[in-house]
Every structure is written in structure tokens, then in C-alpha cells.
């Protein structure tokens, strides 16, 4: 009950409650915007000392998703690190935690606006990646062709429940493109009705709210 299947660009995909995307036919798991090292960067930049456990918490969830799905390929869709210095700062902890997760599978780091250029970690480092009808990149392109999968915007949506309004991160999709929610623990979001999405999404867009089970609503 922690997953919702949906059709997209000729493929059958699964939205997981955790915010990860699962492509069963290709055994591919995709997560976006981990923002690892965010607390380190905030301490460095503003002196704010947030609970420094977001790397642990984010990777705990990723490990769980990997254990449940046993993917052949894992794609981190950009902004995996809050910045390159943060990546350096949490490098040792990461290498230790990531090694068992990466073992025996293809691991692709897509670069994002926060982490341009390769990080000092194993795996493949790419600007974008294509598989079958799908293209994986960090930021959506206005001129993208059918089947674009991106992150960057951290979409979220609201849903009424008996007089209360509940806001959750969400997947956002139309016929052509799919935008993933931020997977990282310390991440905010942008509501689907934000003008930024208006120019991007075409036709009847839908959102899939992170929930157990995930819930699909029209936008």
C-alpha cells in the first residue's frame, strides 16, 4: 500500500510513498534532490546549527527503498549534495554508508545546479541519461520531448480532509513530463499552483501526493 502505479509516456511507473520513482520493467530506482550536507552548509554559511542528522535520515530511507525494490540501476537526479563543499565535508560518512548500497548495481549521479561537476564518489557522473522512451535530467526544459523526468522544483500540493488542509510533497506530471518531489529530509517545496509550473505544464496536470498510499489528484 506504499506505492501507486501510473502510466507515463508508454511506460508503467510506480510512485513510492517515500518520494522515489520505481520503473519495474527496467528495475530502475530514481530519487531527486537529496541535498545531502545541507545542515553542514547552513552552519558554514549562516552559523545556524540544525540537527546534523539529515544525511543519516535521507540515506536510511534510501536504503529501505533499495532493500524493498533491489534495483539494477539507481539514478540520483541532481542536487544530491547541497553544494560541492558540503559533499566534501560529508564525504567519509557517505562513502561508508553508500558502499553497501552501490555494490552490485549501476549508480548514476546526474548533476544539478547545486552540485555541478563530478563529486569525488564512485558511480557514473552524467549531465543527463536516456533509457528507452525516458530522459532523466535535473531541470525541466521548455522544449523537452515526450518522456522527460526531472527534479529541481520540489513540488508539493494541498488536499482537503474534513475541513483541514494537508500539504505534502508530490510528483507532478502531464502527458509529456514528470517532476519528482525532493527526497532529501531538509527540503522545502513549491506549491503546484505556483506560476513557475504554469509555463511548464501542459493540458490537465496531475499530482501524486506522498502519503500511504500515494494519492493522485488533478491540479
Amino acid at each position, binding site marked *: 500500500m506504499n506505492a*501507486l502505479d*501510473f502510466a507515463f509516456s508508454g511506460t508503467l511507473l510506480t510512485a513510492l510513498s517515500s518520494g522515489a520513482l520505481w520503473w519495474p520493467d527496467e528495475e530502475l530506482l530514481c530519487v531527486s534532490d537529496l541535498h545531502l550536507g545541507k545542515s*553542514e552548509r547552513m*552552519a*558554514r554559511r*549562516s*552559523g*545556524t*546549527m*540544525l*540537527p*546534523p*542528522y*539529515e544525511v*543519516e*535520515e535521507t540515506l536510511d530511507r534510501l536504503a529501505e527503498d533499495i532493500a524493498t525494490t533491489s534495483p539494477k540501476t539507481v539514478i540520483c537526479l541532481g542536487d544530491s549534495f547541497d553544494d560541492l563543499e558540503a559533499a566534501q565535508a560529508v564525504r567519509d560518512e557517505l562513502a561508508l554508508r553508500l558502499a553497501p548500497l552501490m555494490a552490485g548495481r549501476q549508480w548514476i549521479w546526474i548533476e544539478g545546479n547545486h552540485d555541478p561537476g563530478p563529486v569525488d564518489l564512485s558511480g557514473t557522473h552524467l549531465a543527463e541519461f536516456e533509457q528507452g522512451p525516458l530522459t532523466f535530467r535535473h531541470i525541466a526544459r521548455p522544449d523537452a520531448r515526450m518522456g522527460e523526468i526531472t527534479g529541481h*522544483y*520540489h513540488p508539493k500540493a*494541498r*488536499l*482537503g*480532509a*474534513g475541513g*483541514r*488542509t*494537508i*500539504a505534502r510533497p508530490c510528483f507532478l506530471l502531464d502527458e509529456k513530463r514528470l517532476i519528482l518531489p*525532493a527526497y532529501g*529530509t*531538509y*527540503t*522545502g*517545496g*513549491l506549491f503546484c499552483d505556483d506560476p513557475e509550473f504554469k509555463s511548464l505544464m501542459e493540458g*490537465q496536470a*496531475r499530482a501524486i*501526493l506522498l*502519503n*500511504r498510499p500515494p*494519492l*493522485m*489528484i*488533478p491540479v
Partner: protein
Amino acid sequence: MEMLARADEPCQLLIAPTGGGKTMAGFLPSLVELAQGTHTGLHTLYVSPLKALAADIKRNLSGPVAEMGLPIRIEDRTGDTPSSRKRRQRADPPHILLTTPESLALLVSYEDAGRIFAGLKRIVVDEIHALAESKRGDQLMLALSRLSTLAPQLRRVGLSATVEDPQAIAQLLARNPDPCAILQADPGPDPDISMLTTEQPPPWSGGGGRYAIPAVLEQVKNHRTTLIFHNTRAQAEIFFHHLWLANEDQLPIGIHHGALAREQREKVEAAMVNGELRAIVCTGSLDLGIDWGDVDLVIQVGAPKNVKRLVQRIGRANHRYNAPSKALLVPANRFEVIECLAALQAVKAHTLDGDTDHSGPLDVLCQHILIRAAAGPFTADALFTEVRSAGAYADLPRESFDQCLQFCATGGYALRSYDRWQRLMQREEGGPWQLRDPRAAAQIRMNIGTIVDADKLKVRYQKTRGGAPLGEVEEYFASTLRKGDTFLIGGQIVRYEGLRDMVVEVSRTPNLKPKIATFMGSKFATSTQLSDRILEMFRQEDWPDLPAHTRDWLKLQRKLSKLPQRDRLLVESFPHDGREHICVYGFAGRNAQQTLGLLLTQRMEAEGLNPLGFVATDYATLIWGLTPVDDPATLFSRDNLVETLETWLADNAVMKRTFKSSAIIAGLIERNSPGKRKTGRQATFSTDILYDTLRKYDPDHVMLEITRQEAMRGLVDFGRIEEMLARIGSRIDHVKLQRVTPLAAPLFLEAGRVPVKGLAEQKLMEEEAARLMALAGLKP
């Protein structure tokens, strides 16, 4: 005059009713000492809780000083003072500086604080009763502890309205263990206070007092200026709206509360000072001692909940010292008739509500440590001694202090540390603490203050229609609005048009009924003293002082069931409308009864009693469900309730809200500086996430301990549940009936019913998602 005679004592507390001229009395010794013209630099600091009060006092003081030709410079310094003048004041301080707790904390944070305050002789804290129970007061007293080190000769004077326990305030004010002299002024004549009787009896529930509008208008006509107090902003809004509709004589009536735009408030204040208004509908924003001119009647709509506040409000009327103040109480519903009578008795008997024990909160201490660090290096031992000289922190354990210091220095996390980026550091083992990066001082200063408002959004008319500002609503409320929704603000019904640049844009609407109830205001809980008086009243054979409708109601309750008693707990159970109900008369105040409802329904869920929801008032909690409760006694075991509380607290919105404000005060997260727009997805994420993360990875962290303490004495109010359990012991009277009892009936009309969460809410969300998809003609 006694003040003058005893001016050399280290600490004095003057207690006098509003309008007794006590502020001027507080300044007299300063004026005498300064008259010789020999003192250079700062001599007297005056601190008041309100900016407006500081400005007011400056006017009242400067006049006579100039007339007498005294060589005394008097200036004020608040958040509104231009920065050029603030800089000059630091370089060349006036003799008398009038300021607020926040502005003083800021002054104390400067590296040159020692020079500014070196010659300081006296500090006058005005309206100290209003500061005594708040974090603003705690912050002020910590600042004073610092001042007493910088200026050991400093004498303290507190000015207070009438309070129940002057000794408690004296202890907060004095430098521990200095003594504090208490001077009581003549309280003046007793107020002329009564209940407003109307032809129409008050309704069974609700808090608006609308039924009394014709009678209130009649009173307004018969007096020069009337203040009409309400307990919440929402109630003030609704009342004002209907008062206008009924105001056939076009009497000039205004509204004043904290959520209105400053321009609007200032307009009302000016009109009032000029005597142009016949009545002002208002809330606590008019509570403090500013002289608003010729008020000759105070009307309190809704039970006052707290006798002390009532007495201070009544003091607003008639600022002539020898004439009795005149006030009327308007009970908003039938139960409040009883509560108002209890309040009247309390005022006549001169008993006010006692203060609860006040130990200094640790989030304020964390902020103070950072403020101290901004001023320069310090040793832990010296700061600890200094902090303990503040009354509220006199019993602070060293361990708690060290925890707070660690938190400020490194974040205080158990499993990881910020070695490279810690905020405070020691250059050598055991040496003084100092800021790692001196530039951090500016950020610390930006975050000074202990008032944390819910995030608010401004409301204004659309640009095309002039764009006039109307006030503010909570961001949460704004997020629930859809285009076309109507709500009340500033006494007007407006239509929601959209959110633009973080401003809620609205238009006028001819609609007479607002679709959505207004934003929430604060809900006060009835004080222990009033609850006790009500229970005491229930023991009487008859109630000749009560109106017939209320008297008959109580008699019927006694006949059909029982009246609640102080040392027992009455629990009624009865079926109604296909549901089983239990009604618990705990008389513990609204917050505690609410918590009790949450705890009891969890116990019931665990015991398979299928609770569906509950509603709470100041005196009772009504729970409904599918299964009858045969033996309520087991639900009330203290151990059970405490255990349930622990699990419930873990994932609770109240805790998360409390965490957020404590985290801001303690400096874990930054205050949203005004005007700073939240842009982009990266800028903010919910503090709920921080709370959840800490609970999961660092459950003993000091911020969680602070949150717990705050919630227990604030919104959760478990203290009063414990008080109640101790009071009733095992004496639980379970009365089983076949239908609703008279005393329980109003609870069925009460707003704020709480559904039991869990599976029920999940189901509602799924249904709503399915409905929306179907509406849009989409298949999942």
C-alpha cells in the same frame, strides 16, 4: 512620598491601581537626584512593555521637566527610533532613557555596554505585572542581572497594578538574594460592577454575545465613551459587524485589535484621544495602561476567565482616582452567567488569581547566553552566578545551564558535532567563551526578542481598488482560502481574490454573511480560582443571585443527575442520536479539558471503546463513540494518563508549534525578518521536520526538553489535569442516564469538535482525492 524616603533601598515594588499616578512617583527620586546637574551619562532607565507607553511617558515627563527648567535630558529608544539617533544615544546617552525589554536586550548585547551603563543608578520597570508571567519579563530580568554587574550601585523599582501575590513579583524583580520593599498605595473605591441583564436570555453556547447588542447599544448611548472588551479577535470582529448593522443612530464606533493594520489602529487611537468615538470594540491590545481619555464605562463581553485581567480592564474606566470605575459583564452563554457571577463575587472579595510558580524558561536563557557572547568573551562560572541572581533563575541547576551553553556553542548534539563551525568556542581549555566568528554578533542581534508570532500575511484591497491595507491573517488561515471565499476583517466582509507577492488580496462584497468563520484568536482558559468558585456555588441549596433561567437549569441538573463537586469527579454517560456519550466535568480550564479529551479518547481506542470524537469547554469534555463506557474509573488512573501523554506528545501538532517558537527564541533557527520574502523552494522547510529528526536521532536533546516543559505549562496544560486528579483522588461518580443531561446539553452546540484521528482521516483524504479525480474526468 514614601518612595522618595526609601529611595536608597536596592529594590522597591510599588503597587497601585491604574490611574494612580504611580509612574510619576517612580521617577520622582530620579528627578531629585538629577536636579543638581552633577550627573553625567545615563542615570535612569525606564522599561515598559509597550513602545507607545514609552513615548507617552516621555511626553508626560518632558513637559514638567522643561517647565521647571531642570537640566535633564530625556529620550526614548524603541524599535521605531531611527538608527542615527540610536547611534548617538550609544555614544552620548541621555540622563533618562525610556525603552522596552527588547531594545534593552539589544543595548546589553553591544561590546560597549559596560561604558553605556557604567554610571546607571536606577531602573524603573513599569507595568511589571504584565511582564511577570511572560518570557519578555524573563528576558528583561536576565538583562537586569547583567546591568547589576556593570553598575553595582543600580537600584530597581517596579510599578505594578493590583496583584494577588506581590511577594512573587518582588522576588522576580529583586537581585537575588537582595530584599525588596513592597509599597501598597490606596486601592481607591470599589468598582461599580454588575451583570448586564437582557430581556432575552443568553444562548446555550457560543462566545459572541450577539444577543446582547440592543442592550449594549443602549448603554453606549447613555455614556460618554464605552470600551467593549472581547476575549478573542474573531469575536470582536463579529460583534463589531453586527453592532454596526444595529447602529441606527449612526453613533461613531471603532474597532481596535492586534491583527489590524497599524494605520487603522492609529486612526482609531487618535479618534479616541480626541473624544470622537462613543465606543470602541477591542481586545487585549487595549489592556495596558495607556491613557485613552474619557472612558466612563467598560463592558466585558464573554466571561472574563481570569479575575485579575477583569480588574485591570475595569481600571481602564474613569481615570479619576477617587471615583469608582463602572463596568458591566455580558455573559455570552448560559454557563457564563454562572462564571460571571463567580467573577463578580471574586472582585467584591478582592481575591485575584494567584500566579503559578514561575521558573525561568531555558529558551530565553539560551538567547541570553548568545546576547552575552555578542557583547564579548565571558567565563561560564561568572555568567552562571549572574544568571542565578535573576529571581526566576535562582534555582537553575548548573547542569541545565551547561546544557544551554553547550547548545549555544556547538548545537549540543549527542552523535555528531559541528567541530569546524561551532558558534562559541574557547581559545584554550577552561578559558573564556567567545564567538568563533565575530560577525555572528549581528545575526544574534537580529534574532533578539521572545515574542514569536505565527507567520502572518498582510491583507489589502486589490491594487485596482486602491490597495488599502486592512490587517493580517495567519498564514495557515490564508492557505485554506479559495478564490471567492468571504471572511471578516476590520469589521468588513471581504472576498478572497488571491495571493500576490505574499499579500492576501481581497475585494469588497455585498455578501452579508461571511462564508468562512474568521481566523482564530487566543482562547483563554478559566482560572483555577474561578473554577473553584463555581464549584463552591454548586453546593448552595438555591441561587437567588442568578437569573431565573439559569437557576432553573441548575435545579433541573440536580434533579436529573448531579451537580459537579470540588473533591469528586462527575462522569455522566448516556446514549444520544445513535451514539454513546460520556461527559467529564473536570473544571480544569479549556486547554486541560482539551488535552483530557485527547488522552481519554486514546485510552478508549486502546480499550476497544471506539471513540469517534470529542469537544471541550472550560468545565467539561464530551466524548462520543460507538461503545458504551461501563467503568470510567479505569480511564482516569494517573499512570495510564501519563503513559498515554508520553506517546501522544511524540507526534502532536501542539508540540511542533511549541518547538518552533522555542527554537526561534533559543536561536536554533532564524526569525523570519519582516519584509524578507520567502522565495524559491529552497528557502524554507517546515520546522516539523527538525522536530521529527531530533526525536528520531537525538531524543534527549535540550531543545526537546525545553519543548516538553513549555507545552506542559502552556497549551497542553497537563499541570491542571494533575491538579484535578489529585483533588478528586479515586472519588469518581459515574451517573448512567437514558438521555442528555441539562449541563451536558450546551456541549452539543459547542464549536471545535475534534475528530479522533488515524484511520478516519486517512479515509477522508482518499475519498477527497477520488472525488477530485472523478470531477476532473480523470482515471487514476
